């Protein structure tokens, strides 16, 4: 049991850190994608195409095994770091599309009102449009978060000791498949906790309505 809890910590840490990183990167990608400047929008579109269009598993393999071959200096010795990089880059592509859709769903009149008051494009985005889009992002971001929480089980293929990997080890050591039960329970509890947190957030951002 202590081993499972420790492994749960790894699953949690990987999920939360990579989603948080991906939110930052995703906002940047989304803004680049809707920019009128092709030097911003084209690379952003390509990035999103690449990371959504290829399997996360291969991306993970590539970061862990492939990158060090191409750039020997980039010897990613830590499994956790490799997983964190692969997940962040991958999730950012999905979040970018969620964020873009949320931003573009805000009435054009909001930007016009902001501009007519003398606010710059950037100010309109950061003070007027993006804050209003939070509420619309939260349900799909919650969805994405839960997917990631479970997708992190992929890291067992690079032998990073997350909840799934640990469960498998215990199951084969003790030759008992019953260990899958607490493991499933832990995933469900985590999912429940985060669903509640996201619901709270959604309520908080809807206060003004």
């Amino acid at each position, binding site marked *: 049991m202590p081993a499972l809890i420790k492994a749960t910590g790894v699953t949690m840490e990987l999920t939360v850190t990579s989603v948080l990183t991906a939110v930052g990167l995703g906002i940047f990608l989304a803004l680049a994608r809707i920019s009128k400047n092709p030097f911003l929008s084209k690379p952003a579109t390509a990035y999103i195409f690449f990371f959504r269009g290829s399997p996360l598993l291969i991306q993970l393999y590539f970061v862990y095994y492939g990158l060090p071959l191409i750039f020997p200096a980039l010897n990613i010795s830590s499994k956790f770091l490799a997983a964190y990089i692969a997940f962040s880059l991958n999730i950012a592509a999905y979040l970018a599309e969620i964020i873009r859709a949320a931003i573009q769903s805000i009435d054009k009149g909001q930007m*016009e009102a*902001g501009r007519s*008051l003398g606010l710059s494009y950037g100010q309109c985005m950061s003070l007027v449009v993006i804050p*209003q889009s939070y509420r619309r992002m939260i349900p799909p971001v919650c969805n994405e978060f839960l997917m990631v929480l479970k997708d992190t089980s992929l890291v067992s293929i690079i032998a990073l000791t997350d909840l799934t990997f640990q469960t498998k080890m215990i199951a084969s050591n003790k030759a008992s498949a019953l260990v899958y039960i607490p493991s499933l329970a832990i995933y469900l509890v985590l999912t429940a906790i985060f669903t509640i947190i996201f619901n709270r957030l959604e309520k908080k951002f809807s206060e*003004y309505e």
Partner: protein
Amino acid sequence: MSIIRTVDICKSFTTVEAVKNVSLSVDQGEVVAVIGPSGSGKSTFLRCINGLETITDGEIYIDEELFEKRVKGHPHVRMTKERRAEILIKTGMVFQRFNLFPHKTAKENIMLAPINVKKKKEQEAAAQAEELLVRVGLADKFDEYPARLSGGQQQRVAIARALAMEPEIMLFDEPTSALDPELVEDVLRVMIGLAKSGMTMLVVTHEMGFAREAADRVVFMADGEIGEVGPPEEFFTNPRNPRAQQFMKSILHQ
């Protein structure tokens, strides 16, 4: 001295020519009402002045300073971003659909631009916002979110929000068209008060009562062109332009 002067401005979208060679100047302290059938280019004209649409031909001067100039087929003559922004804040805009920021209270809506554009201190901006809200008759709504205000109240907050930037001219784009009839009066009263206080105003409207009472000049637009310009008494009693005659008839028959 003219606050706004347009010289032969045109605006065409891919399939329609919305504004055709419109030349108009609005002097300081003057209230000009722009009327005409829907689709006549009135709103587009107003939006060009505020930089929300880019003209395809012509010149726009704000405060006798060139704001935008375009000769068809030639590149744009445009100010630097900074200069353009400086000129633009001389015009305040009120929209048909209010466009208040829903995530901000009435007071915060008004304070946003003074704090972020004019770099006013928060306290100073708050005091100004409260004063403006009192002026538009919303002394008890400082901390209300737009969703909890009626259309008429929202539009009055929007007027206060534009006034907070101390513009030299206020542009109104059909400010009462989205309102329930019983709420129109409150907004018009604020606008008439504003006109009497000496504010320069360019108002696209369907409210003939307002045009008659508060306007110094009425501009009639049809098919993207100015059909007739004149003092309200003259225009309303005896329109000369055939399109204007037809328009007045259709309104009176309602």
